[in-house]
């Protein structure tokens, strides 16, 4: 019998460890990666010719990053690597891909989806001005290009990335004028029992905060965002401090983000069941402890299934690969798997802790002024979305999308979908879990009109 054909989407920490595990089992998986180089976003590599050290790029995670890179590089020749290849649909047991303008399908016996996460964003007036970027973008500019997003940079939002990016900017010599966090200190204290599941990570987080304080960066907790203002570009960030005073921060760039959201579109298109996760306020694929989705032969690993971070992604990649191997009738190392599962349970406790410490500020969506752009693709306002949710009686987000186009633009709802659902829910006076989620649509990214299928 021919070897089973296993396709992995993504070459970050999860995809890399999944591929390594399959190769060790004697298989030759296909790895589809949107970028040219492996590493994913978290361990993104700088272009050839750049000279900064791993320590400069990845800080305390340098050894993990280089280990993941080395593992992937060691798989060359043992996997079928498809770099610069977009996975844009899953249908009838095949992954649909595009390389350049060449479209094709990859039939699979098992599919491991390791597509990671993007920034979770809450709109505010002025967030489409030049100079406003996601936290992830702020980090990519520095890590992959050696650039700051501006000359006087403010960071606003919540979550570990908020502080990490700010401290990386300080370390690189950028002027960080303020860090504004919507989460209050009390939330962090409440989360301690769960976050104690990973004391090492907790300590690293405290270290990042201390470095920012020592650098003299003003940090404001429990703030309420008001607006980003400027004439054709960012000039001022307005917020309200926890004590009610107005904060006016002069800056030419703002990095915003509220932790992360899983990239679930491919699982959705594959027909996997998603369920509302109350801890993260997101719809996530239903998974067993090893990453098996509800559809046979589909596995999720890494932040695309649960936001466990890079370490959790490595473990999830191994578990998903073992699950696929077991389901294909191969023998797997049960004792090792049990250890990996135990590690993931600890990671998941920490994940739930993070969600308490740095909660998604859903209430801000309800309070957005009507004129705020929610959909940055097509410039559709919160007021227009409220109108379709109430006057036109759209009961859930897909109908609201059909009426308003919020979620129908070229980002496919990645940056408006979660806030949009909160706006619809608040306008209708129901919980956000009542208004559903935007259904995944193929292609998950825009395809060039020149795309073609040879031999079809």
């Amino acid at each position, binding site marked *: 019998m021919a070897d089973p054909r296993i396709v992995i989407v993504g070459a970050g920490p999860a995809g890399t460890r999944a591929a390594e595990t399959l190769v060790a089992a004697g298989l030759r998986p296909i790895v589809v990666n*949107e970028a040219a180089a492996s590493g994913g*976003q978290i361990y993104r590599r*700088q*272009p*050839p*010719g*750049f*000279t*900064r050290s791993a320590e*400069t790029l990845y800080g305390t995670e340098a050894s993990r990053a280089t280990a993941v890179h080395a593992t992937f590089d060691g798989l060359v020749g043992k996997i079928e690597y498809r770099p610069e290849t977009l996975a844009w649909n899953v249908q009838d047991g095949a992954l649909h891909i595009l390389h350049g303008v060449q479209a094709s399908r990859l039939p699979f016996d098992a599919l491991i989806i390791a597509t990671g996460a*993007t*920034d979770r964003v809450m709109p505010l007036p002025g967030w*489409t*001005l*030049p*100079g*406003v*970027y*996601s936290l*992830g*973008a702020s980090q*990519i*500019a*520095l890590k*992959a*290009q*050696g*650039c*700051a*997003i*501006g*000359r006087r940079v403010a960071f606003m939002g919540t979550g570990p990335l908020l502080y990490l990016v700010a401290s990386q900017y300080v370390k*690189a*010599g*950028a002027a960080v004028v303020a860090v504004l966090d919507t989460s209050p200190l009390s939330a962090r204290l409440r989360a301690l029992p769960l976050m104690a599941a990973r004391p090492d990570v907790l300590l690293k987080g405290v270290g990042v905060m201390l470095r920012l304080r020592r650098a003299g960066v003003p940090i404001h907790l429990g703030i309420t965002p008001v607006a980003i203002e400027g004439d*054709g*570009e960012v000039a001022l960030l307005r917020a309200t401090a926890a004590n009610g005073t107005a904060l006016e921060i002069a800056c*030419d*760039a703002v990095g915003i983000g509220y932790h992360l959201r899983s990239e679930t579109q491919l699982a959705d298109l594959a027909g996997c069941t998603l369920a509302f996760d109350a801890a993260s306020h997101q719809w996530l694929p239903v998974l067993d402890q090893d990453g098996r989705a509800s559809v046979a032969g589909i596995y999720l690993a890494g932040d695309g299934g649960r936001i466990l971070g890079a370490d959790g992604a490595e473990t999830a990649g191994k578990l998903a690969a073992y699950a696929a191997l077991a389901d294909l009738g191969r023998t797997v190392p049960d004792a090792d798997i049990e250890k990996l599962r135990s590690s993931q349970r600890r990671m998941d406790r920490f994940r739930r802790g993070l969600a308490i410490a740095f909660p998604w500020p859903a209430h801000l969506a309800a309070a957005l002024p009507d004129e705020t*752009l929610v959909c*940055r*693709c*097509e*410039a559709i306002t919160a007021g227009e979305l409220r109108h379709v949710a109430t006057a036109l009686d759209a009961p859930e987000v897909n109908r609201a999308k059909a009426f308003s186009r919020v979620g129908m*633009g*070229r*980002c496919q709802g*990645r*940056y408006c979908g979660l806030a949009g659902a909160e706006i619809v829910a608040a306008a209708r006076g129901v919980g956000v879990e009542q208004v559903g989620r935007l259904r995944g649509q193929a292609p998950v*990214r*825009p395809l*060039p009109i020149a795309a073609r299928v040879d031999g079809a």
Partner: protein
Amino acid sequence: MPTDGRFERLAELDRPAVPIEIDGKPVTARQGDTLLVAILTHVGSLRVSEFGDGPRAGFCLMGACQDCWVWTPDGERLQACGTPVQAGMRIVTRGAPWPILG
């Protein structure tokens, strides 16, 4: 409208120069730059929203938001954050130059 660059280079400063042209104006990028960085180290924005709400300068830098589209004079669309700069590139940031068919 700002005329100087938006992004500030902090590291990797001694890479070879790569000449490109933005809206007809010759500028110098660096080898290894993405098109987005090559443009935003010289000008303040990448495009103008088709919906009348002003200029845009990208948002996610990871190929997800699609807010960094720029064009070649022939009408080819490029995602600025994911396209490496190449010597001689000519980029249009104001209005899609749709190719005239037929």
